């Protein structure tokens, strides 16, 4: 079995759906950071069978946790200080997200109005559905085509 060492200061994202860690790496813009990141794919998990894990050596305050919540709010976030887990951060779906998704509706005003923020409102919390504030079009693919940072 492959062993990855502990991190001293930073956070660990656990219970990521197997195969999704790279996409989260990009959506959190970790590729633009200078810190150490370990991407663990297909680790064994009692709960999930297989899971991915991300270990990131940087201050969690620098991360946009709203982005993570909308991608998958079932991910466990462990905050690490001095090599120990000091807190577990709950991810809750934000009621409103700004400039995380872009509206794909070609008839939406966001397609032509200059510098208009792309705002989505949480509709059905159980299903995690977001709709564009302006045209009410559903965001169909949160980590795919709708994502603004792609």
């Amino acid at each position, binding site marked *: 079995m492959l062993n990855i060492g502990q991190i001293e200061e930073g956070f660990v994202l656990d219970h990521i759906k197997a195969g999704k860690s790279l996409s989260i790496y990009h959506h959190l813009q970790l590729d633009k950071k200078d810190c150490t990141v370990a991407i663990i794919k297909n680790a064994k998990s009692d709960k999930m069978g297989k899971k991915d894990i991300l270990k990131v050596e940087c201050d969690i305050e620098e991360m946009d946790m709203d982005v993570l919540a909308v991608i998958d709010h079932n991910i466990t976030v462990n905050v690490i200080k001095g090599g120990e887990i000091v807190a577990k951060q709950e991810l809750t779906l934000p009621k409103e997200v700004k400039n995380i998704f872009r509206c794909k*509706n070609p*008839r*939406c*005003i966001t397609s032509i*109005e200059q510098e*208009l923020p792309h705002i989505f409102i949480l509709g059905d919390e159980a299903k995690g559905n977001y709709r564009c*504030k*302006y*045209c009410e079009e559903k965001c169909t693919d949160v980590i795919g085509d709708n994502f603004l940072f792609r």
Partner: protein
Amino acid sequence: MRHLMSPLDFTVEELDKLFNLANDIETNPKKYAHSCDGKKLATCFYEPSTRTRLSFEAAMINLGGHVIGFSDASCSSASKGESVSDTIRMISCYADICAMRHPKEGAPMVAASKSRIPVVNAGDGGHQHPTQTLTDLLTIRSLKGRLNNFTIGLCGDLKFGRTVHSLIHALERYDNISFVFISPEELKIPDYIIEMLKEKNIPYKEVIRLEEVMPELDILYMTRVQRERFFNEEDYVRLKDFYILNKEKMALGKEDMLVLHPLPRVNEISVEVDDDPRAAYFRQVQYGVYARMALILTLLEIDIDSL
């Protein structure tokens, strides 16, 4: 300051107040003839719509106010690339209230967020057309005397028709309404509306032929079935007659049934039906003016009794 973006922006109680005002305007038009003296309505129509624009303009003129505006994007600074946000900031300096139609969905909401004057959504793409819904509700309430306890049939293009979707959302707030959806398979009501009705235990049924359900309807809301919505010409030719209202189909309806249509009508209501006392679609146009008059007074916070 309030705007009107969606028919659900007003509570049922606020709508009641607005409709009472509209009915008072209908009964005593002279009383309101100078209620907007010195006020200006800007009609900002980025796409042509003669009917809605003229209705707004007639409403403001009936109240003693004036109208400025444009009726096509090519006549406005939008053709020079001006944003909606900038246009409304400018309009706010010229007028007291603005009615905006725009082909882009959500444009009036963007305008409202930057505006110093009330903005009314006069239709934004396929999204909302709240003053049509106010018109539909006022017509039903005025001619039926109530907005509850009836069966309404919605017939024609139920898939793309924004007026139909808005009307369903507005009516589901009232008690004991049943819906009958009459459309070809290709133009069925969207799933999300069916899901909403199921969740709220609101009775509905879906049928293909209008004749089947005519006897049970208190209101029949007709819409146009457009040729271009069909995948092939054969289906269109086969189905189109199911959705044409004529004397024979009217004979199956209740004596006090109402026929409504957002207009323009093409051929889905035979001209022979126009003289039937149950045909209410031209009276509906008149109610559209009263509804818009009441809306202008409400959004400008003009209380006629305090003038």
